[in-house]
Every structure is written in structure tokens, then in C-alpha cells.
């Protein structure tokens, strides 16, 4: 940055430091993370839902799947969040609704990250016609909104948690690949890559042992952002009927089941609370992503 000497930016021309300072630096980073308000807020939100995803229906006040006669009762003493059109307790359903999303989204993200990183490394490192060809294909695929691709694929493969993971992971791969490719392009011009070639290192070594460690930062940030989008995607697809299948008390299914009621009358609690639940989870994930990004950028 111009106008700012190294002093202002807090960058110290490092003097010869003793090696244990490396550990101190790492600890300082973790310390910064812990002190970052965004990170803490995000971690709390996500932690809450992870807890409920694991615990599930065991600790909810009522059985989330139990159908009763007490339909469409507004929020009150017996049912804090009211009941839905089948008499099911909304609070219990909201609390238990995290499970499937929390299983599918992280795995889909992982798939996307692994696939995308490999693809990004290959296209970014080799450039040439390999890069051109694959990039054209990626451009073509990304010309379509993801939901369109996902819906088409899920119709073809049928909807289940497994296919959901595969489809979302596959759709994320080109997106991650683009980010990774950009990072690789920046690194490959640096001299340590030339130095490695001059040692006779083979391409896979250079890609994975030399370049990859230097781009972990952006990949981690991308992974957390993707996780947010994965939850987003699972929610949307489930709402359309292609994602998690009933009778799981998934939030989007709750919204899908009950949103037509809004035309009939003010039964907003049936959809509002699941909506807020989705929102808090995704916002939590994004806050973590933001916190991480701030710390890793320094």
C-alpha cells in the first residue's frame, strides 16, 4: 500500500528470530481469532446448531414427528412456537431440523473443495491448451444458474442425501476451481517454482508440495464461504422438493409445507421460525468465514 511505510502497517523487517517464535506467531493468530467478535458470534451460532444436529429429537420438548389434533395453534404456553397444520410442535421441529442439513452441507462442501482444488491446480499450473479447454467447459457450465443445474441433475439421479451431496459437490467444483486457479496463477510466477523446476521436481510435486501450502489461506476462506452456500443450496432444493425428503423435520420442508397457508390467513409462525433458523445458521457460517479471512489476511 502506498502512502504507508512498513512502520505504519506494523510490518517489521524481521530480524533473525529464534525458531520458537514460529510457535508464538501461530498462537498469536489463534489469539486474534478468538478475540475477533465476528468469529466468536459465528462460532456460537454454528455451535448451537451443531449441538442440536447431534442431539436431535432426544432433547426436544415434543416429538417433532408426532401428528396431533392441536393444529395451527399460535405461539403460547404449551407450544412456544405454535403448531403447524398437522398439529406438530413447531419448536421441536425447528430444533430437530438441523440434522440433515448439517450432514449434507459439510460433505458436499468437502467434495467441492477437493475436486475444485485439484482441478484448479491442474489448470492453473499447466496453462496451455489443457487450461483453455477445461476453462471453456467451466465457463459454459457456470453460465447457468446453479439451481438449474442441480434441479436437472437431481431429477436424473433421484433425490436422496447421497445424490444431494454428489450434485452440490459437483456444482461447486468449477467454482472452487476458478478461485484456486487464480491463486495458482499468482504463485507460479514466483521464483521458488522456477527453483523447484531447476531441481528437477516433477509437476505433481510442485503443484501439491510447493504451491498448495501457499494457497491454503484462500482455500480455507473459500471452503467456509462454500459451506454457507451449500446450506443455502440444500435449503432451496429441499424447498423445491428435490432435496431432503419428508418426513425429516428439515426447515425448508416445513416452509414448503406451510407457505400456502399465508394466503389463507396469518399463520406466520409456521414458516417464520424455520426461516429464522436457516438464516441464523448461514449467517453464523459466514461470520466464521469473515473472521477467518480477517485473520488470515494479516
Amino acid at each position, binding site marked *: *500500500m*502506498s*502512502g*504507508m511505510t512498513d512502520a505504519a502497517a506494523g510490518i517489521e523487517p524481521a530480524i533473525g528470530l529464534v525458531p520458537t517464535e514460529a510457535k508464538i506467531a501461530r498462537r498469536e493468530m489463534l489469539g486474534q481469532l478468538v478475540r475477533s467478535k*465476528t468469529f466468536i458470534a459465528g462460532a456460537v451460532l454454528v455451535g448451537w446448531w451443531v449441538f442440536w444436529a447431534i442431539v436431535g429429537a432426544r432433547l426436544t420438548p415434543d416429538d417433532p414427528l408426532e401428528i396431533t389434533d392441536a393444529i395451527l395453534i399460535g405461539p403460547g404456553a404449551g407450544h412456544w412456537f405454535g403448531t403447524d397444520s398437522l398439529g406438530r410442535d413447531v419448536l421441536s421441529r425447528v430444533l430437530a431440523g438441523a440434522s440433515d442439513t448439517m450432514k449434507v452441507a459439510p460433505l458436499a462442501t468437502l467434495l467441492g473443495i477437493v475436486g475444485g482444488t485439484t482441478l484448479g491446480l491442474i489448470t492453473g499450473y499447466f496453462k496451455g491448451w489443457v487450461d483453455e479447454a477445461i476453462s*471453456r*467447459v467451466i*465457463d*459454459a*457450465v457456470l*453460465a*447457468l*444458474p*446453479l*439451481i*438449474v443445474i442441480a*434441479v*436437472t*441433475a437431481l*431429477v*436424473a439421479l433421484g433425490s436422496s442425501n447421497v445424490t444431494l451431496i454428489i450434485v452440490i459437490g459437483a456444482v461447486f467444483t468449477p467454482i472452487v476451481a476458478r478461485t484456486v486457479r487464480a491463486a495458482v496463477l499468482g504463485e507460479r510466477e514466483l521464483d521458488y517454482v522456477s527453483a523447484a523446476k531447476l531441481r528437477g521436481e516433477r509437476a505433481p510435486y510442485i503443484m501439491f508440495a510447493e504451491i498448495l501450502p501457499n494457497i491454503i489461506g484462500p482455500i480455507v476462506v473459500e471452503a467456509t464461504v462454500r459451506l*454457507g452456500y451449500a446450506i*443455502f443450496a440444500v*435449503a*432451496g432444493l429441499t*424447498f*423445491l422438493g428435490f432435496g431432503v425428503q419428508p418426513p425429516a423435520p428439515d426447515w425448508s420442508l416445513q*416452509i414448503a409445507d406451510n*407457505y400456502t397457508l*399465508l*394466503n389463507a390467513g*396469518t399463520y*406466520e409462525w409456521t*414458516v*417464520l421460525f424455520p*426461516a*429464522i433458523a*436457516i*438464516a441464523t445458521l*448461514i*449467517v453464523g*457460517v*459466514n*461470520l466464521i468465514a*469473515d473472521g477467518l479471512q480477517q485473520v488470515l489476511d494479516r
Partner: protein
Amino acid sequence: MSGRRASAAARRPGWRTVIARFLLNRLALSIITLLLLSVIVFAASQLLPGDVGRNVLGPFASPEDVAKFNHEHGVDRPVWTQYWDWISHFVRGDLGTSLQHNVPVGELLGPSLVNSLKLAAVAFVLVVPLSLLGGTVAALRRNRVTDRVITVTGLSLTAIPEFVTAIVLIVVFGVVLGWLPVSAAAPEGAGVFTQVEYLLLPSFALVAVLFGYIARITRAGVIEAIDADYTRTAYLKGLTPGRVVRRHVLRNSLLPTIAVVATQVGYLIGGLLVIEKLFNYNGIGQRIYIAAQAKDFTLLQSGVLIVGIVYLVATFVADLLFSLLNPRIRYGAAE
């Protein structure tokens, strides 16, 4: 000596030529991408399981009827013949016949596309100026309260799925307060203002989703311009801060935003399946979704390809704007 230089100057291409060459290049790339897309789309639709005839005619139709249907609609021909048939008609404007409804695809997609464009237009007009303003203000007040508020609000809103925001908006403005209609489809023959009124709620949901993202990119662009050496030069000349921002900073910071906005156009047109379903709106997203469920190949293929075309057109326009506004592309490097 000067003779050498003069002839060199004469040989230097004018900026119109440079841009024309650049755009031709992008156009060629777009067409290749488009062709590739058509192949991918076609292949994907072929992978949809189930027999077309069986799906349309139902499980009780006889095998002979199914075979006859398949033959009539040409789905039993070799794959490349079908592809060629489809694509050669497509470029001429004939999008094929819907297998499910037995009407020309164009008749079905046309109105849907128009609807999607209307919604996208309203959302666009709302979100772009708001995001530009928000991002710029956040950058100018970097790390202060205003910036934090704008950034965090944008971040949170963006993170929430559009249908969640839409639900909240519907509940608050549609059901509880009753200010705006809950459906996006205005009654037949409604005037422009009424149509816009109906489109406001879904547009607000879209604004919520996109604001944070575009504002963040804008903010980053403005910050980069503020930190640049040339801004320092401007200040040290003695210019007022207002003038520095207007004349020097903004010019250079808006370019990345154009690129980003263009990429969102595809989503705004074809990616709104969920919003369309919630608001009961006949957009192109809905059409595609229904076609996928019904295994209506022709409708599905053409619909998806149309969405792809819209996206590529948008990015091409963005490239055009970018090259016009960026002198480095117009004039190239020093001789």
C-alpha cells in the same frame, strides 16, 4: 529520425480498431462457450431417466402407442441426429415442440422469459444504485461505524437464502401489514405501475440477497483506488477531498463492479425458481423446473440454453463497457 517515429505513429491502430478486435475476440469465445453449453445441455437432458413416451402417455399406455409417440417425436433417432436437428432449428428461431404440452416451445418460453426480464429489471434498478452507494460510502468511511454497519448488514442479508428473506417480507409486508400483494403476478391487463407494485416484494428479496455482495466488491474497488499512489498525488496537489474522490477515485473503482453485476444477471433471469414458486410467478425458472420434472426434453433443453445465452450476452455487454471505460485496453501499452 523523426521520419521513423512518424511512420510508427501512423501504424499504431486507432482505439476503435483496438476495441473492435477485442470484442470480436470475446464474441468468438462466447460462441464457442455457447456451443459447448448446448452440447452439455443436450447430453444432460439425454441422461434423464425414463422413456419420453412413457412419461407423457402414462404408465397404462400400450408399448405400441409409446413406440409410436417416440417415433413421431423423433426420440428414437441416433443422438447426434437429434442434437443437430435441435441446434440447427434453434439458431433459426425454431425451438422445437414441447413434448408435454404439444405446443411450440417458443410460445411457452416467450411469456416466461418476458416475466423473468421484468422481475430482473425491477430488481436491477433497485439493487445496483443502492449497492454502489452503499459500497462507496462504506469505503470512504472505512473501519468506522458506518462502514461496519453497512458491511455487516450486507453480509447477513446476503447469507440468508432468498426464499427465507422472501418469507419474512411476505409475512411482514404482505400478511401482517398488508401493504404489498403477496403474489408477484399482477392481474391481466394491469398497467405498468401496478405490475411494478406486484413485483416489489420479490424484488426486495432479491435486493437483500445481492446488495451485500455487490456492495462488498464496490467497497474493495474504492478502497484500492483510495490507497493508490495517484490518489496521494491528487491530495498533495492541494485538491479538496471531494474533488479527489469524484475526479480520481471513483473513475477507477467502478470497473470491477461492472464485471460482478454482469455475472449476477444469469441468476436474476434463470435462477429464481424458488422465488417464482413462492410468489406464484410464471418465470423461466419455473418453466425449466417443471420441464425437468416432466422429462420434457425439448422444452428443457431450449429453456436452459436460453438462460445461458442471456448470461453470455450480459457478460459480453459488461466486457464492452469495461473496454470502453478502461484506457489500458483501448490504447494498449507504450510503444
